[in-house]
């Protein structure tokens, strides 16, 4: 395909595409549905899972900004 559509991943951003989609899919944690235990500090595990997933995202954004996002002047 000579002119791949703009939304398709390219060589230089393929891994980032995969990574962000993977992170998004991790947020749809259907395997935790119906579960409230184990409780940690009185909260179910899945709340901490989402909290740390969100914080992890910040780290990924840092790497994305540092290694992929080239600034235009």
């Amino acid at each position, binding site marked *: 395909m000579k002119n791949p559509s703009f939304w398709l991943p390219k060589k230089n951003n393929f891994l980032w595409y995969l990574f962000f989609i993977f*992170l998004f899919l991790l*947020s749809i944690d259907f395997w935790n549905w*119906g579960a409230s235990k184990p*409780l940690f500090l*009185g909260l179910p595990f899945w*709340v901490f899972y989402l909290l740390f997933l*969100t914080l992890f995202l910040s780290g990924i954004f840092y790497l*994305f900004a540092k290694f992929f996002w080239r*600034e*235009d002047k």
Partner: protein
Amino acid sequence: MIVFLIMVLIYFLLLIFIGLIAFRKTKKTPEDYFIAGRTFGPIILFFSLAATNFSAFAFLGFSGNAYKSGLGQYGIMGFGTAIMAIMFYIIGRKVWKLGKEKKYITPPELIGDRLNSRFLRLLFMGVMVIFTIPYLAVQAVGAGILIQYVSGTISWQIGAIATIFVIMFYVLLGGMRGSGWADVFQGVIMITAMTFAVVFIAISLGGFENANLMAYNANPVLFTRPGGSEYFTIQIWFSFMLLWIFVDPMFPQLFTLFYTAKNQKSLKISMILYPIIVSFFFLFPVLIGVWAHGAGVTMPPGQEDMVLPLMVQRYTPSIIFAFIMTGALAAFISTADSQLLSLSTMLSHDLLGLKKGKKEVLYGKIVIIMLSLFAVLFVIGGYNPNEGIMGTLVKTTFSGLVVLCPTAIAALYWKKVTKYGCISSILIGEFSIILFYYKFLPDFGFLHGILALLISTFVLIVVSYFFPKKRIEVL
């Protein structure tokens, strides 16, 4: 409550003072008044993006929904909003660059110019304006309800109208610079206030773990999904996670902020910090809403959005209660000021099509006054408190604005996109929302906005291929 009224008065005076200082620093040009001369560094941009996005919805709506449906409210708001920050790269970076090169100051201006269509520009603007005005009024209503609740004597309508006039006054004075500076001040107040709220309530309930366990014992359903009323289905969860990514950048007040960045470093730092602030700030009101069950609080149907003020009043000293309620006001006002400014920028710049210069700023200020009066009318006659903030917003703003996103992304990236594709995408997308709303089309349990987003994307691609026209230049 006299302490609260004094705090609110001081807070309002400080906002006007910030507006006055910004007024002295602002040149009488549209670029300087409406987008602060593209000078916002990382701190101001980050706080503006955060304070603008964290609204009455975050303070009252989150806790109200958590009271009804449980901890799942944190999930549908937290991660979805955090990952939305990738749009600071996908949309923000290009908007910033094009804005700098072509001197754009509004979202419709960029879209209309890219596709060389005045009609598309007006359509894009019309959708943004129509769906943002109720959102603006909701902020004022939230402020009014709080003022009524805390004061006990001032009606919510009077409180809302007073809030609208204060916002109008300092936005008139300081423009975007005033709004940005005020957002830093208000962002700090609201984050501190929310932290105080959760800490004081937790201590009063015997500690963090005990507060959670009391709520769990009272209503364990709230600790699972699908939660209370089985609200958090997989379809709803997926819909919200996706919705925020595509709808948040289409809020005109957020889209416009992309123009204000001094450089791309400001956007980068905002993107990195956004998930950190979201991860905690969105959790706190949800916890308070859920803890209310353990504390034996019963909210009548339709009044759930008042659970946070009630909990704060019950479990914190009066001076802390007053401060936290002032922080809640800051959440409302920091959103409303940016909305008012972005709407007036679009109406004066895109609709009136004035030649650039001082006159445009003057007309912009007249529009600010007219919009404020319009919001007052909405407050007096149009708001149905029984629907709750969440219901009102989801049914109006979010679904209506998300349909604009395919056009915005295509205008920035896709060479083959045509104005016919964009116009059809927006019109058919909005029409589909009506069809979903009145159940002419099945929604399969998904949010209507997400299905409309799919339809508008499909229409944009198909029509652009069927009606090829001049290709646009892509950066």
